[in-house]
């Protein structure tokens, strides 16, 4: 069993966690990154056009570049799922399973968000049989078919735009009006004749023939019909914070369930820091660039904390 105590363990290998690792390496902190998916939500993005330095890059390519930079600097990235985190005598214990755990003086939670589901009948039944949460993974299965994209954010707009090159027809179904997506995206969607936006409408059921999805039921009629016939339903309605692991430590959350942090990414728990989408810093504005920034700030803050033995203030 590993008996060394790391300076820092970063849980989450998305942009926040990876950036924190880059800075931690440069500060000479002995640390470990553990994350079940390198890149996190970023790795799913078809294309990224708002991360400085890259006019256009796929989420997967950007992820790989970040991971490469992290590893070049000497950090370990473990592609594993953490099952529990405990704090004993001021030391964090991060467990991968019954027999394997790692210990550290500080912990950075950069676990991002988990995909929100529609929570309607038929959704679970037709998962992978028409229902998808990953446009880049599954878009190609719907060549020349009609699909729905549920959501109104940048991610939903990007997904619909990406699908417009593959599917014959895309219904973008959003519960509000107008879209939450940037004007940039709204304009791009207008250029696509095969995208139709249905506003102020909810999908209330996924219909199917037992083998696969065949349509969706809406809560109000669109062009006289409450049902749309289609084969794919993509769900892009944001996420809920991945705080399950740290709740038991008594970390303070805001009303939305995001981790409360100070401007230097401290939580109310001594030695515990949070950064990226899981932290309550930027409201609904959750970007790669805000995650990386927070990761860097957190690493700096952790470095100072370890060096000075400072206490977490616990004020947010």
């Amino acid at each position, binding site marked *: 069993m590993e008996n060394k105590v790391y300076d820092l363990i970063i849980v989450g290998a998305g942009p926040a966690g990876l950036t924190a690792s880059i800075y931690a390496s440069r500060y000479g902190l002995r640390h470990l990154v553990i994350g079940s998916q*390198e890149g996190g939500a970023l*790795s799913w993005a078809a294309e990224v056009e708002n991360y400085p330095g890259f006019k256009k890059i796929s989420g997967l390519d950007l*992820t790989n570049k970040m991971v490469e930079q992290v590893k070049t600097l000497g950090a370990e990235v473990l592609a594993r*799922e953490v099952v529990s985190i405990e704090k004993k005598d001021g030391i964090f214990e991060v467990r991968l399973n019954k027999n394997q755990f790692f210990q550290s003086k500080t912990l950075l939670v950069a676990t991002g968000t988990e995909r929100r589901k529609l929570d309607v009948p038929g959704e679970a039944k037709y998962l*992978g*049989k028409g229902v998808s949460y*990953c446009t880049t*993974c599954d878009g190609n*299965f719907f060549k020349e078919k009609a699909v729905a994209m549920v959501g109104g954010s940048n991610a939903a707009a990007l997904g619909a735009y990406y699908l417009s090159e593959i599917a014959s027809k895309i219904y973008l179904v959003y519960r509000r009006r107008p879209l939450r997506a940037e004007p940039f995206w709204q304009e791009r969607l207008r250029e696509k004749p095969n995208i139709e936006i249905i506003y102020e409408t909810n999908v209330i059921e996924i219909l199917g023939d037992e083998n696969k999805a065949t349509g969706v039921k809406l809560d109000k009629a669109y062009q006289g019909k409450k049902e749309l016939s289609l084969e794919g339903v993509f769900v892009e309605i944001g996420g809920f914070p991945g705080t399950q692991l740290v709740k038991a430590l008594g970390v303070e959350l805001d009303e939305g369930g995001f981790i409360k942090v100070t401007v230097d990414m401290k939580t109310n728990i001594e030695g515990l820091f949070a950064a990226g989408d899981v932290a309550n810093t930027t409201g609904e504005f959750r970007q790669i660039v805000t995650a990386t920034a927070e990761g860097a700030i957190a690493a700096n803050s952790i470095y100072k904390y370890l060096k000075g033995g400072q206490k977490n203030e616990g004020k947010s």
Partner: protein
Amino acid sequence: MQLDEQNFEEEVLKSNLPVLVDFSANWCGPCQMAGPIIDQLAEDYKGKVKIGKLNVDESPQIAQKYMVMSIPTVIIFKNGKEIKRQIGFPGKEGYIKILEESLKS
């Protein structure tokens, strides 16, 4: 092992060992994460379970036949029949879990 439309019947459906087939493609982020884990498991389960990868771009008919509409998906076949299916990337533990379950069944 790389599976395709040519060797699928021989290597999967006629196999004496159970076979785990990983349906994936280059453009799928989570599939790229699963890839190295699948390779590792192929080593770990040598002699117990045959583990192969199938590129859905190169073998669309097989993906269609087994109604794979989401990747990564793994299907475990035993005696030519599907006995387990995992849709999405469950992490290494998730794959181990279904492998162990399929060895017991």
